[in-house]
């Protein structure tokens, strides 16, 4: 979970069995009819259907439950096809519209049923961009960011993205059609402590949550850690959680009065307050 909070994504390489990948290629090529927005999984995908079996793979089921909890709704799904030598890439974007929810989040499952090479234009994504508030393709001017991820993966790979992650389908320069099946899920429960929390206080969690990425500007990168600390507070219910004091420092406004102390008096051997102020104003402080 800490990895997801830092990166905005979770990648599971080659977890779908080959026979299902083979079936998926023809299933996706035939087109998948749309479903009403916000459909429960059992209604969207009948028992035995390929999407339902995909969601039943233990790693997929576990990741989905950890991220959005039980009984999520299917927001929508889509088959994404990148045609060979198509000549252009998608502009970098975040899906849907600008999303100003406090900390709750949707996830997008992306399933790649075939081997994806660099030339095939695997999905571009920008690690750690999910907390940046932008509206869809307004980020289109950014062609490349330092440390970006250009997906190259084996067949049967599933990636979960936070809804806010910047991404886009890259230009397919190969001779092969590239398929990806996307399903967006909405949570129906508060996303708190939904995962295996047995290692919640391990040093690796802190290390992961304070990770920075090469494209972060020096100053704004600190704000990313601040916002991550708030997200971790939401996910754990720990209202005092912090990362390297970033939140605590800037919210520290004590209201308790100081205990009363005797008023200091000037003596010939100790400098007066007025003298000390004069020293400060002279720049000697």
């Amino acid at each position: 979970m800490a990895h997801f909070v830092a990166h905005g994504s979770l990648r599971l390489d080659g977890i779908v069995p080959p026979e299902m990948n083979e079936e998926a290629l023809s299933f996706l090529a035939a087109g998948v009819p749309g479903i009403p927005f916000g459909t429960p999984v059992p209604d969207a995908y009948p028992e035995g259907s390929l999407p339902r079996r995909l969601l039943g793979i233990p790693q997929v089921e576990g990741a989905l439950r950890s991220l959005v909890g039980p009984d999520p709704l299917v927001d929508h799904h889509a088959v994404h096809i990148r045609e060979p030598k198509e000549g252009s890439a998608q502009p970098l974007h975040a899906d849907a519209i600008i999303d100003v929810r406090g900390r709750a989040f949707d996830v997008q499952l992306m399933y790649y049923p075939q081997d994806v090479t660099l030339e095939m234009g695997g999905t571009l994504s920008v690690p750690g961009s999910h907390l940046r508030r932008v509206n869809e393709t307004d980020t289109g001017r950014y062609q490349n960011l330092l440390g970006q991820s250009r997906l190259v993966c084996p067949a049967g790979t599933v990636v979960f993205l936070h809804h806010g992650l910047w991404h886009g389908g890259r230009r397919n320069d190969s001779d092969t059609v590239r398929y990806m099946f996307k399903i967006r899920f909405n949570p129906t429960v508060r996303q708190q402590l939904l995962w295996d929390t047995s290692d919640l206080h391990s040093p690796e969690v802190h290390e992961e949550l304070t990770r920075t990425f090469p494209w972060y500007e020096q100053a704004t990168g600190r704000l990313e850690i601040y916002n991550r600390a708030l997200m971790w507070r939401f996910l754990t219910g720990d209202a005092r959680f912090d990362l390297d004091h970033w939140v605590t420092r800037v919210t520290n406004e004590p209201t308790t009065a100081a205990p009363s102390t005797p008023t200091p008096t000037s003596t010939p051997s100790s400098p007066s307050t007025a003298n000390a102020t004069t020293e400060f104003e002279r720049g000697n402080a």
Partner: protein
Amino acid sequence: MSTRQQVLALYLGTSALDAKVVGWARYDGTGRTTPTTGDSDEPPYVTGLDALLDGWRLIQASPMLPPFPGHEYDVSFLKHEFLFEKLVDTRI
């Protein structure tokens, strides 16, 4: 008319022009190249200054604006955008 404009957008790590490049985009008015999203993992220059040293002319830099009150901790677009141009004689 045989002069065409090439545009380079660099996103830097601070507001200083000699800061490290963290993002980039290119648009080629000559039509000789077709840069696009996700076409490279390596920045064209290490710093913004390196672009000047290579002959790019700076035509715009992001203004430095204070955050909107109440949104001081929000993160959104990259802040330090520098736009450069080169004028290219397409007869060459």
